[in-house]
């Protein structure tokens, strides 16, 4: 039954995509590119959720709000502290420093949150840290309201907003910049987790904290490091969002955070590649749904995303790349 259900859904999806592809191939490519661009942004945030979940099995609800603070930090850094309003050399240099600044800023906040709120609750029942994370989310939103104001705020951007046209498909410079920043960050992260000693310590801590201690791994330091990386990625995402969209609001973290968290679950929470895959998939599905001639349209965007999430989880409960591990005792 399940298998036939899955194949039916798959078949309908292929028919829908096929009809659209034949009817409007250029538009199809166009919305896919847009979708991938959003997906990359989601991926940067989703990784923060999945890293933290992977290591201490906590859904860090405050993570989306951290991203929001990153966006606000970047706005202030570029526009108010360094007075950059145009895309020129000074603007680019400021953009570069804002990237480093926002990553440091969000990384530090994330480490402090873990140090003072979550660490004390590490051996408490699971609900305690979860509720603390929800509380932390409100706390950060409150800081956001104080900092940003309670209404959306427009900012000048220092990255160019021109376009390239490749075979009829418009690719904005913003998209390229997003790829140029996000892709190296993702590769560095993969390298750190899979190839370095720190990464090995992270993976060991994720599987068994006491056993990791017996190997001589400093578990507290390893968890702090994980929060630092997750926070830094959220900081980078904050800058990229703020510069590509040009608007900030205090509740930004809730909207994008929810989508990013969904991406992490879709890909298999705790799995880094899964988070990226889930994020790109959701980005593209949103893009296709919002922009294709035969589709439900933007108003149904969230509905479509979550319907797909539910369908995939029904068929594969651990997520796309998540593994249900069977361990012998």
């Amino acid at each position, binding site marked *: 039954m399940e298998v036939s259900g899955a194949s039916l859904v798959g078949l309908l999806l292929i028919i829908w995509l096929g009809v659209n592809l034949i009817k409007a191939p250029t538009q199809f490519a166009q919305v896919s590119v847009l979708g991938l661009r959003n997906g990359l942004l989601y991926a940067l945030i989703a990784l923060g959720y999945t890293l933290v979940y992977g290591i201490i099995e906590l859904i860090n609800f405050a993570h989306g709000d951290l991203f929001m603070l990153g966006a606000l930090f970047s706005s202030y850094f570029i526009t108010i502290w360094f007075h950059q309003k145009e895309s020129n050399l000074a603007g680019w240099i400021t953009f570069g420093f804002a990237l480093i600044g926002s990553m440091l800023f969000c990384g530090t906040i994330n480490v402090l949150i873990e140090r003072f709120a979550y660490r004390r609750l590490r051996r408490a029942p699971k609900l305690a840290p979860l509720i603390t994370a929800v509380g932390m989310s409100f706390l950060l939103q409150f800081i956001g309201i104080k900092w940003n104001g309670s209404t959306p705020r427009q900012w000048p951007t220092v990255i160019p907003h021109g376009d390239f046209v490749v075979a009829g498909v418009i690719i904005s410079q913003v998209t390229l910049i997003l790829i140029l920043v996000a892709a190296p960050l993702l590769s560095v992260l993969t390298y750190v987790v899979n190839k370095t000693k720190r990464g090995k*310590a992270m993976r*060991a801590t994720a599987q068994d904290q006491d056993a990791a201690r017996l190997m001589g791994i400093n578990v507290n330091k390893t968890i702090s490091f994980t929060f630092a990386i997750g926070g830094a990625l959220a900081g980078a995402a904050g800058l990229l969002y703020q510069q590509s969209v040009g608007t900030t609001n205090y509740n930004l973290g809730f909207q994008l955070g929810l989508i990013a968290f969904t991406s992490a679950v879709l890909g298999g929470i705790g799995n880094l590649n899964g988070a990226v895959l889930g994020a790109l998939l959701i980005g593209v599905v949103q893009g296709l749904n919002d922009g294709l001639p035969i589709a439900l349209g933007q108003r149904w965007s969230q509905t479509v995303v979550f319907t797909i999430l539910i369908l995939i989880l029904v068929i594969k409960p651990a997520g796309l790349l998540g593994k249900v591990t*069977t361990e012998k005792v």
Partner: protein
Amino acid sequence: MSALLEVRNLKVGYGKIIAVKDVSITVNQGEIVTLIGSNGAGKSTTLRTISGLLKPKSGEIFFEGNRIDGKEGHDVVKLGICQSPEGRRIFPRMTVSENLDLGAFLRNDKDGVEADRERVLELFPRLRERINQRAGTMSGGEQQMLAVSRALMGAPKLLMLDEPSMGLAPVLVDMIFETITKIRDQGITILLIEQNAAAALDVADRAYVLESGTVKISGKASDLAKDDAVTKAYLGG
């Protein structure tokens, strides 16, 4: 003989429950010392406290003459105390090879690590066959071999083994105890916890019998094996 490890009047508890009331033990350089006793006697808690995973309520632990109680787990490993914990606690989603690498996490002597890796694979040839297999998919006996090997990869001065024979087939139990003797012959001091008291007393030099968190009897292992009280309580005599 000089004491490598000395535990004095150790008291450890989880919240209000006191698991170890008053334990004093000494392990000398080059010895195999065993702690025997029934379930809940406080054997594993003692080991976990020596390893720095638990903080004692009172008492002192000395290693090579320096006080180590209260140190963090990762700092205790640095001193040369490695443990193969109760329930094996190998990293199930990593390969055998990665588990061994983690055992040597703190070491920077590449050649030494490589030599030790060869050495443990000589001790447990089965692990060589499984070197790229995920550890969680191996049998209980193989996981036990891995847990012991992983502890050896830390180049310990003191190797602490918590129930290495638990849940193993009799053939494997013999093999594990034979290996323990071999490890000692290579110059590593061993503190062994066992429920299989007969086998433990057979390989050990000295033994302590723990009962509800206190040392009940201690002495030469060969003497304890003949002791009436010990035989009745732990050797099924």
